[in-house]
């Protein structure tokens, strides 16, 4: 098994790492870089809690071999906060109490981020589709949707 060196930009910081050919991005983020905000659920791309934004696109990091992310720009939930201040989405999630157990929250936040980056004025239905790739087993979807709606408003104003 031969290791190779990959280069990535994670949350604005450039890193270079030696990875195994069959190491997954989510494990590199969690186990090697200590970015445990990204969660591991099903490892089959069904639950969405491992979602990260890779080169501007929301992807399940459990299905991405680290080698595929070579040269990529990655945003994890840890990178949402700027200079000690929470991202408007994070603030609204707190304001609206859109967090129950918190396990899906990183996936939800990044889904919402990807959605708002592409479409700053999403309709209710577009929000629902935007977060449809993340399962919340506390089933607190309503608050999450409300939080995204008001974050969209605060980003716009």
């Amino acid at each position: 098994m031969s290791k190779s060196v990959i280069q990535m930009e994670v949350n604005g910081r450039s890193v270079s790492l030696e990875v195994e050919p069959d190491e997954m991005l989510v494990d590199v983020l969690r186990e090697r870089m200590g970015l445990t905000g990204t969660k591991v659920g099903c490892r089959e791309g069904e639950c969405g809690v491992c979602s990260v934004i890779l080169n501007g696109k929301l992807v399940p990091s459990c299905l991405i071999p680290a080698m595929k992310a070579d040269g990529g720009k990655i945003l994890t939930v840890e990178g949402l906060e700027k200079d000690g201040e929470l991202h408007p989405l994070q603030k609204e999630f707190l304001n609206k109490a859109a967090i129950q157990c918190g396990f899906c929250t990183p996936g939800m936040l990044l889904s919402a981020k990807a959605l708002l980056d592409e479409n700053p004025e999403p309709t209710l239905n577009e929000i629902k589709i935007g977060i449809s790739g993340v399962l919340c087993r506390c089933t607190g979807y309503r608050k999450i949707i409300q939080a995204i709606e008001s974050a969209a408003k605060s980003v716009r104003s």
Partner: protein
Amino acid sequence: MGVGWPRNDVSQAVLKRKTFQKGKVMRDPVSKSHLWKKPCWEKYFRVKTPGEAVQILEELQGESRVIAGGTDLLARMRQEGFGVKALVDITCIPGLGEIRSEDGLIRLGAVATPKDLSQSSVLREKAFCLAQAASQIGTPQIRNLGTLGGNLCNASPAADLAPPLLIFEAKAKIAGGKGEREVPLDSFFTGPGQTVLNPSEILKEIIIPELRLDASATFLKLGRRKAADLALVSVAVLLAMDRKERTCQLIRIGLGSVAPTPIRAKQAEAFLIGRRLDDRSIQEAAQSAMRESQPISDVRASSQYRREMVGVMVERAIRKCLEQLEGKDV
């Protein structure tokens, strides 16, 4: 297992999957075994040309596999763990994800993602039902990562992109050691999970004609839920008619999830062609499509239900096409 628990199909299937099998490491959902690494390969190649991919696949025959998005492949490798030593990633080949329109043909690169397809202005204008189908695959995450080629090469009977491509009579362009060949998509699938591809060949491109201006096409998917589900039945219909006589000039019906491969309902098509499109003929065509389907029963639905739904969906799709045609000024 407690005594007296209801044991329906679902729990049986779950039991079967989770039961300990000799020589196989099983995942324990409670313990820390999520760190457990089962699918392993020793080499991961990111190739830059189709030729390079074919060369590696030929050198490591039987031990290597093509990976594009990996959304199907890696999930399946976790469950079944095929003994593969090398993965050949073709997603960095320049131009392999392009969607182009030229001389009345639309060329779809094999690694175009469902997201690319659903947002492509070419498809939205000239083959809308394909964009529609792409926007209903999996989840936003899967639509960003999966690929057109992967959806087809995985050869699931439920592949969402297959029925709409079948009604366009798509051709698959395949690159191999002896050069390139073109295969009609009709004969591309040979069984569940099986295609005409040799282990050292890669799917490069899908070619479809633009939708005729006087025709309309539609795609309908029936799932248990809207997101992240496989189709119980999917139907794509392409229809053109003589506007004066209301007779059917051209009809193609593609069906997904109701046979070992995605299929065309050719008897239903043959029945309808040249006939006046009225309630009776449409219903009879739908019934013919039901007879042509050979669905299985699984955890998602019974074969009887699937067959019944083929009738409902085919009828609905034909009516929708008719509606679209009537709204069109040709």
